[in-house]
C-alpha cells in the first residue's frame, strides 16, 4: 500500500478497466450455471454373450449347474411370475436371498469358485417390460450390504434365445 501511495503521488495512476472483464466473467458464469444439470449416474451390467450358445452340456469344472431364471409377463408387459430353477418366487427380493444362500454365503475354499463359475440364464417373455429384467439382473448379480458396499453374486448372465413377438406367434 505504501508503494502505491508514493507512486500515486508521483504520477497519474493507470486505472485497470475492470468492467469488461467482469462482464465476460459473469457471462461465463451464467453459461455454466444454465448448462449445469444434475444427472443421475449411469452404470452398466456387463454381459459377454457370443452367438454360439448351442449347449454342449455342463462343463465338468462347474461346481454349480447353470441356473435358469424364468420371467413371465401378462399382456400388458407386467411381471406375472418369477421362477428360478423351477422354483416359484413372488418378488426379486426372495430371488436375491435365494441366490445369496446358494452362492454368497458359501464360505470356504469353494466359495470363490462357486461365484466365478455360477451362471444364470434369463428366459423372459417378449412383452415383459425391460425394467423387470434389470431388476432381475440386479437381484442375481449382487446386493448392497450394510456398509454400502456391493457384494457380487452371479456375474455371468446370458439370455435365453428370444421368443417370437406375440403378433408373429399368433400367425
Amino acid at each position, binding site marked *: 500500500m505504501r508503494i502505491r501511495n508514493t507512486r*500515486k503521488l508521483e504520477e497519474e495512476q493507470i486505472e485497470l478497466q475492470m468492467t469488461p472483464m467482469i462482464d465476460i466473467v459473469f457471462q461465463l458464469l451464467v453459461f455454466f450455471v444454465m448448462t449445469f444439470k444434475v444427472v443421475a*449416474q449411469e452404470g452398466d451390467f456387463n454381459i459377454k454373450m457370443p452367438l454360439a450358445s448351442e449347449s454342449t452340456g455342463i462343463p465338468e469344472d462347474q461346481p454349480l449347474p447353470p441356473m435358469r431364471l424364468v420371467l413371465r409377463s401378462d399382456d400388458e408387459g407386467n411381471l406375472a411370475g418369477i421362477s428360478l430353477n423351477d422354483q416359484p418366487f413372488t418378488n426379486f427380493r426372495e430371488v436375491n436371498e435365494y441366490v445369496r444362500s446358494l452362492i454368497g454365503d458359501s464360505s470356504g475354499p469353494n466359495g470363490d469358485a462357486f461365484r466365478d463359475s455360477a451362471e444364470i440364464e434369463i428366459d423372459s417373455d417378449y412383452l415383459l417390460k425391460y425394467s423387470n429384467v434389470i431388476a432381475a439382473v440386479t437381484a442375481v448379480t449382487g446386493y448392497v450390504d450394510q456398509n454400502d458396499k456391493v457384494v457380487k453374486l452371479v456375474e455371468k448372465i446370458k439370455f435365453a434365445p428370444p421368443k417370437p413377438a406375440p403378433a408373429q406367434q399368433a400367425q
Partner: protein
Amino acid sequence: MRIRSRSSKGAEGDLTPMIDMTFQLIAFFMVLINFTEADQNEKITLPTSVLAKPPEVPFEHPIFVQLQDNGRVIFGTDDVPISAIKKYLGREVNYLRYAEKSPSDATVIIRADSDAPTGDVQQVIQMCQELKFDRFALRAKEEVN
C-alpha cells in the same frame, strides 16, 4: 482506505475478492459440466438399479444403441426401426476393421427404456451377435436410496 479515498476522487470498491469468488464459481461449474450427454437421450427413461455404478474404466469402443419403448432405435442421431440397425452396426464393423479391431473388441451399450419390451432388447442383442459383437452392457440409472 481513508488514505486512498483522499488521494483519488471517487470511492472505489475493491473488486479482487469478488473476482476471486466468481472465478471459483466458474471453475466449479466447468469441472462439473459433463458433455457426455451427447450419448444420452431425453426420450429414454432408463430402468433404475442399486447396483448400477459408473464404470471405472471407460469402454474402449463403445457403441450406443438406444431403444425406445415404441420399438424404435436411436442410433447416433437417427431414429430407425429395429430391423434397420444392421446397416448402422455394419458401418461400425467396417470402422472397427479399419482400425484393425474386431467386433469383439467393441462393447455395445444398450440404453433401453424401462418400458420397452424385453423381446425388443433381445432382438437388438441378437442382431449384434450375428455381426459378431459379443460384449454388451445393459445400462441402468443408479438408484439413490
